[in-house]
């Protein structure tokens, strides 16, 4: 029963502030490692040449001008939703209801297009659509915020549940507006009149969306970093008590920030329904309300960083679908690769923040 005080095998300690080249070095190493593991998995499972797979991923994202436009459009929508949830996240308000807020924004847009499409000129209809989508998104986020501020309900559960309500609402209205009867599909709204379609800039269907999101990115960056509101959000996020002590009305900040969060999600819905798809389905947000959480976290809630993290995710996704088309592999295989890469990227943050010290063979504890 010789019980020696050995201590654990691995000792985890928090690192101090590391120079920028260290953290970026770790991230770079993580990506290289991820690619190597992907290559091994690819060769073992499919027998394909991994270099060819990487070339295909690249081709899938940048192969043709159209592919680049689609990449940028997908990036814009994902970035828009990520920007939307970021102010709430900075406040430590876990808004995972982006999906539902986008859906109701899209639903409001579709409702305007369907119900007012043949009554109003586009000049009047589009401002109404913009207002409706923003209001709908803000309402969807405002409800959980109000309950959180008044009665301190759990915002994670609340916003999550609101997603399902939104999905069912959309499902309901799809049946109301379906064409033809019983088909369970709305199809392209106003395909012949193009009423309520956001204007197209030049030849590109997607340029308008991309520009709008670029502007939102800039505004959000300024708002979070250089405005009084942004500062209040940061203080509330650090400590509600401190915020109260310095005279910030916490309730007001929570509700105001969530209204903003929902409003931007509503804009994402507007861009999807009015700008590109011109239809509404329950899957139009395509899980991006949740992917946005990852985008936001990976970039440490920094709007400029989010351009890169959303680019990474969209790039992987586009490349992945190209793999499944070109190699006759199931789409699940592409998802496996994406999973591996994300695992390494998220995992490396741990090594940036913490140091692992292994127990030395010779004992030297005092």
């Amino acid at each position, binding site marked *: 029963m010789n019980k020696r005080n050995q201590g654990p095998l691995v000792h985890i300690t928090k690192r101090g502030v590391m120079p920028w080249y260290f953290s970026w070095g770790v991230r770079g190493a993580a990506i290289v490692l991820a690619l190597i593991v992907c290559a091994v998995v690819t060769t073992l499972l499919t027998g394909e*040449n991994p270099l060819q797979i990487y070339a295909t991923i690249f081709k899938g994202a940048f192969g043709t001008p159209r592919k680049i436009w689609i990449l940028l459009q997908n990036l814009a929508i994902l970035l828009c939703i990520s920007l939307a949830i970021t102010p709430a996240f900075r406040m430590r308000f876990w808004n995972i209801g982006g999906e539902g807020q986008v859906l109701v924004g899209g639903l409001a847009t579709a409702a305007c297009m369907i119900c007012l499409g043949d009554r109003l000129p586009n000049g009047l209809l589009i401002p109404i659509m913009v207002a409706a989508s923003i209001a709908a998104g803000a309402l969807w986020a405002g409800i959980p915020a109000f309950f959180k501020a008044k009665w301190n309900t759990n915002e994670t559960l609340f916003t999550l549940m609101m997603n399902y309500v939104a999905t069912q609402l959309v499902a309901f209205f799809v049946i109301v507006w379906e064409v033809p009867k019983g088909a369970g599909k709305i199809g392209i709204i106003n395909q012949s009149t193009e009423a309520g379609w956001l204007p197209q800039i030049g030849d590109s269907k997607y340029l308008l969306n991309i520009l709008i999101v670029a502007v939102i990115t800039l505004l959000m960056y300024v708002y979070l970093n250089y405005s009084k509101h942004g500062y209040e959000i940061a203080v509330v996020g650090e400590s509600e008590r401190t915020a109260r002590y310095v005279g910030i009305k916490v309730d007001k900040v929570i509700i105001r920030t969530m209204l903003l969060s929902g409003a931007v999600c509503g804009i994402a819905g507007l861009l999807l329904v009015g700008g590109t798809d011109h239809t509404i389905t329950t899957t139009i947000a395509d899980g991006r309300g949740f992917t946005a959480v990852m985008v936001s976290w990976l970039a440490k809630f920094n709007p400029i960083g989010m351009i890169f993290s959303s680019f990474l995710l969209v790039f992987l996704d586009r490349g992945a679908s190209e793999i499944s088309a070109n190699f006759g592999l199931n789409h699940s295989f592409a998802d496996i690769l994406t999973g591996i890469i994300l695992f390494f990227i998220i995992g490396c943050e741990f090594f940036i923040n913490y140091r692992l010290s292994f127990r030395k063979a010779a004992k030297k504890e005092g």
Partner: protein
Amino acid sequence: MKKLIALLLAVVMLLALAACGAEPATEEPQEEPSEESGETAGTVPADLKVGFIFLHDENSTYDLNFINGAKAACEALGLTEDQYILRTNIPEGQECYDAAAELADAGCSLVFADSFGHEDFMIQAAKEFPEVQFCHATGTRAHTEGVANFHNAFASIYEGRYLAGVAAGMKLNEMIEAGEFTEDEAKMGYVGAFTYAEVISGYTAFYLGARSVCPSVTMEVTFTGSWYDETAEKEAANKLIANGCKLISQHADSMGAPTACESAGVPNVSYNGSTLSACPNTFIVSSRIDWQPYFEYIIGCVINGEEIAADWVGTIETGSVVLTEVNEQAAAAGTAEAIEAVRAELLAGERHVFDVTTFTVGGESITSYMADVDTDADYTPDTEAIVDGYFSESTFRSAPYFDLQIDGITLLDTQF
């Protein structure tokens, strides 16, 4: 290594085909899928490329049926692997337009999409790429849209359902004779997806087929509101069985209803392909559309520079409407022969599925019915569908438009 994958795919396809049952006698015109196309004459140009867009991947029975057809047609016509591109998991939104446009960019002269909700986006792409042919299964707008390079296709699958119904009726007769229940208790159940004409046409044909051999039969129909929802379909089948239905059929794409039947020991008539391996004791027969003839037809048209029909209807004659092999263990004796006899009558035009003398609506037989053939938001009836004493289904356009509620069928719910 590509060869290995190709080999694997071939094995999978073979297995799938084997699972669908070695096609019975109902499928003899395999070699001459459609006489007028004459695609056997043309040789495949080296620069020909064909693109296919599928809603899901091979895990969905519906898409698997298309994927198998596409591969078989491309192989039969001698297209190399680089000459056809399969894009799976394409949702019914802007992604469909993007996928179609990308395929056109990649040099495809023919692009096909398999799901109803793809239609609007295919039309959008068709307008933008006038030199590329866009074909779409189950859609309704090609004949009214006036886009010359956009085409619809469907099959007279109601005839296949009718034949499957005959098998169902014979099974009920056998069970009545065995004393399991009385004639008046002969009730079937049907799990549908939506109250859409395609589903209505299908279950009505199935019911009429059953009633042609078992006159006392009635049927209950319930809808799930989804083309693929395993749980909902299973629950729906269980509900029908609890209601006293003696036999179940379905028009939705999961294994929900067949497996519910297998565990309850209730006979099942399937769709899209055989479910024999999962339901050896209850699977009777399945109708399905074989898309290979259509794919051979459109690819042939593109090779030969011929016009593709705006609305193409596959029939028993073109080899598009087929039945799997009858499962002797579950089916009544003589089912295969009876199906063959009725099939011959349908082929000869001696029997029509929607013969107005065989059904009534609200207690009265109908002599005239305006169907909504030209799709519009208000469902305006526009075409007289009763021709020569029968409802002429899938002749004015390829997609079904039979939406009458005939006597003997009870709809349990209609919210979808």
